[in-house]
């Protein structure tokens, strides 16, 4: 893939340069002009890599995953605070700062991964170090 030049450093808009197979599949799979070719190269074995992102929200199974993720929110782990207090924290932006960077951990929880216990605190990398806060959060 073309490596995009970042217009300014430290932006919130991430500019990944896809290089691995899964990224490339994501960009080109099933895309482009279709020609009634004499031979069409099979994609068997490659399609499997893209399935993980295709969870459709429609089933009891999905509901249970949502319920589980909701039950496991950090609100619960704050040590005895009741929900009202916790929500108060959330509205002040405190809770969302604490849980920023939780995408991967919770996604794993939602998709049945096994390391969801430490997931929400696992990725202190880029975003958790931001000092600015969202107006909307």
């Amino acid at each position, binding site marked *: *893939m*073309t490596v*995009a030049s970042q217009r300014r450093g430290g*932006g*919130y*808009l*991430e500019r990944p340069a*896809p290089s691995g*197979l899964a990224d*490339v*599949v994501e*960009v*080109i799979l099933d*895309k*482009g002009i279709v*020609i009634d070719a*004499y*031979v*069409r*190269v*099979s*994609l*068997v074995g*490659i399609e499997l890599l893209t399935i993980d*992102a295709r*969870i459709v*929200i429609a089933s*009891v199974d*999905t*509901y*249970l*995953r*949502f*319920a589980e*993720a*909701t*039950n496991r*929110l950090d*609100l*619960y782990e704050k040590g005895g605070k009741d*929900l009202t207090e916790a*929500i108060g924290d*959330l*509205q002040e932006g405190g*809770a969302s700062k604490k*849980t*920023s960077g*939780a*995408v991967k*951990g*919770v996604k794993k929880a*939602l*998709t049945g991964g096994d390391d969801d216990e430490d997931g*929400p605190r696992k990725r202190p990398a880029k*975003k958790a170090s*931001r000092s600015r*806060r969202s*107006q*909307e*959060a």
Partner: protein
Amino acid sequence: MTSLTDSTDVMTEEDELTGLYVYAIVADEPDRVPASLVGLDGSPVELVRHGRVAAVVGRMALDRPPGRRADLMAHSGVLDALDASGPVVPVQFGTVLPDRDAVVDDVLDPDVARWTALLEALSGRRQFNLRATYNQAAVLQEVVAEHREVAELRERTRDLPEDLAHPDRIRLGELVARAVDAKREDDAAMVMELVLPHVVSYAPRHGKGIDQVLDVAFLVDDDRRGAFEDALESVAEAWHERIRFQLVGPVPPYDFVEGDWWV
């Protein structure tokens, strides 16, 4: 495939069956294709010229299991190189024709006007793929805070055994799923409203991930690219604690060549 043996074009010196892998269609201009460009099997790319357009092709052995990783990466690499140097119409991965005559007769000649118009329309424009993904914890906390019934059900179910499909837990999940869907719709609409003034067109991509807000391709004029990126940076900053924005590109216009609906 028996007819292939009639044509010397498809026979290598070793007498192995080969075909022409078709990467893309470009304008037939001098130096349009980098001289050292290689594709699948390490084969150099060639041009099959016809009128004002040309197909970018490469010879490919047909005696092996197709669709390897290296094939996909090679296809992508050729398209990236072409995209960096001018308008390009990508052909779908895995398209192989028997010989140069077939490329002219079946691909170029029947649609010369279409290819020419498409290449002109793509000139000075690049594709970008935007993916916006929820921070699940942040958005679930919003849902708990905004929906009294969700908060109550959460209190009631959180100490139940995790493997128990209790009706309350299903109800909780259903309410949360609906609330997240509603948020997704609102958030996606707002992002699109901010971005659309700066793009030529857009096309939904795969979509539907459980934490996905948007997965969409944009076609952007080169001279609007700064404004486009600034608009996305603004919304990414404002929502950085709840939504992750990833912009890939420029990439070849894979999502804007099938049909001319956007032209």
